């Protein structure tokens, strides 16, 4: 074990033994619903407090969104007056049709979705593979390499903007989607390191015994990765998908620098054009913004099922 170095951030774990003891010692007693303990009045109170906090918090969270929607339904002269009005008068439904026809948003949507598809697949695959390597395979130089990769997000992009742009222009990739799509297949190259880091953290919480059993049976690391680890990592994959989706959806600077033809613009660029130097079409901007965030809301809502409800704070089996 001469050259073995522990991965950064781990510690010797005597308590694994303790948990093993627990598993062998106490069986889970079969329960048939609520136990007498659960009918304590404290439990009802806890439930009420929970719901109260939930609802109040949700109301606070909804304020920004409601603001957006009410602005989208108002004429420009009402949006910015102070103190603000919360009820539009009249309802400016025309903001939606006006905004979406002022520019070819359908085309922008298509462009953005195309980029999303390529970027999400590339990011998930390559980042997962890299994270697997950094967490579940032992090789010389692993931590050093991981550390070096991590430094790529520490240098402000403002100063790497120009050299990166020059590189792409030398490769004749200007006014194409290439600079926006290709780095994703190299584990995100730059910002993607956060995804590798995240997946690494998750992979490190899975017991190695699973891998070991597979290796004993003659599996290759690829098989272990694909058939054992990935299926267990649905939650973190969902997180990476959501964050990558949002990142590409809202990315403004990348498309701004690399795309010059109108028909290649993305949604983010389309939104920015509602604000000019002397004038701003606030109603259109708010309406378009509302429409633009809807797909993300839907995506998030439907990917929820991979976040299974856990055990309640008060102990009833979930």
């Amino acid at each position, binding site marked *: 074990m001469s050259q073995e170095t522990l991965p950064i951030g781990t510690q010797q774990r005597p308590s694994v033994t303790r948990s093993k003891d627990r598993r062998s010692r106490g069986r889970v007693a079969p329960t048939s619903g609520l136990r007498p303990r659960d009918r304590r009045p404290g439990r009802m109170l806890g439930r009420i407090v929970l719901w109260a906090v939930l609802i109040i918090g949700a109301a606070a969270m909804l304020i920004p969104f409601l603001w957006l929607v009410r602005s989208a339904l108002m004429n420009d002269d009402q949006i910015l007056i102070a103190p603000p009005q919360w009820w539009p008068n009249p309802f400016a439904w025309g903001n939606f049709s006006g905004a979406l026809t002022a520019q070819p948003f359908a085309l922008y949507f298509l462009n953005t979705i195309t980029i999303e598809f390529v970027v999400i697949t590339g990011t998930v695959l390559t980042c997962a593979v890299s994270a697997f390597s950094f967490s579940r395979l032992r090789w010389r130089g692993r931590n050093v390499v991981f550390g070096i990769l991590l430094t790529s997000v*520490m240098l402000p992009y403002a100063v790497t903007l120009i050299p990166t742009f020059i590189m792409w222009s030398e490769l004749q990739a200007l006014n194409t989607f290439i600079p926006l799509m290709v780095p994703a297949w190299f584990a995100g190259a*730059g910002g993607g390191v956060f995804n590798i880091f995240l997946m690494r953290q998750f992979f490190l919480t899975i017991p190695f015994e699973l891998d070991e059993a597979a290796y004993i049976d003659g599996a290759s690391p690829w098989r272990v990765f694909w058939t054992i680890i990935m299926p267990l990592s649905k939650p973190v994959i969902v997180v990476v998908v959501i964050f990558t989706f949002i990142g590409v959806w809202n990315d403004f600077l990348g498309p701004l620098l690399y795309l010059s033809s109108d028909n290649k613009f993305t949604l983010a660029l389309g939104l920015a054009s509602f604000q000019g130097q002397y004038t701003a079409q606030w109603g259109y901007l708010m309406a378009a913004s509302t429409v633009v965030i809807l797909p993300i809301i839907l995506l998030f809502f439907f990917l929820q099922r991979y976040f299974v409800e856990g055990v309640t704070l008060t*102990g009833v089996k979930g």
Partner: protein
Amino acid sequence: MSAEVTARTRRRLSGLGRVEQRWGWFFALPAIAGFLIFTIGPMIASGVFSLTDWTIGLSPRFIGGRNYHTLIHDHLFWKSLTVTAYYTIGSVPLVLIVGFAIAMLLNQKIKGLSFWRTVYFLPTLVPAIASAVLWIWIFNPDFGLLNALLRGAGLPTSQWIYSERAAIPSLILMSTWGFGNAMVIFLAGLQGIPRQLLEAASIDGAGTWARFRSVTLPFMTPTIFYNLVTGVIATFQVFNQAYVMTQGGPNNATLFYIYYLYTKAFTQGQMGYAAALAWVLFVIVLIVTLLLFRNARSWVYYEMGDAR
């Protein structure tokens, strides 16, 4: 147990070890290649820029470390560093705590959980410009929401982002609305806690707090660590609020480091100096991250711990 360990060791040194070595590099290849192709080149280039006097439009002129010398005597450099550090120290812990608490809240068996979770994630999705306009109203000293609430409660009001002293605390308060990202990661992390342990603990008579402290929290340390490190790295590079809301004011009270860097690089075209600023920040963030990783050994627990 020890026989198992030695057997494992023997196997590793012979077959498994070599395979792991090769596959390790192979799997890391996309990331390494990406770094070499897309990252290292621009990083080196920007390092070289920092040693030049380069106004965009003109040719760069090599001046060695003079930019770094100027930087040390630039009071705006120090100002922006303090402003950013203040913001980071205030915002990161707050967002972590709020995100964690809400993730715990939303990991219960509640009706319509998908709906609740989406609602709590919404503020993160509202576009920055709409958010900025909204918060400018919220912060308005005369008829903004916050002062209205304070007045209603009989408390003294504040000038919020219009006051030099209250500007950063105001922005820290605003940043807590963006806990959504941290919350989602914590939610994912909570999925990985073995339910049997929690059940076993509760059977053994552990109360809510004890279960949280000895089962949930240790299993969450990897994600807490992740959110901490990425939070620090990202918050040091905060830019948007200054750009959209305050333009660094009032009187440079919100002159964030990256905002200052940006104006130097693009408004004034001083790319060489900006590159020097960038590398100074790089070193600072690197040191802080290294310290965090070192410190993590004492409190972050990985299930893979003893094998790896």
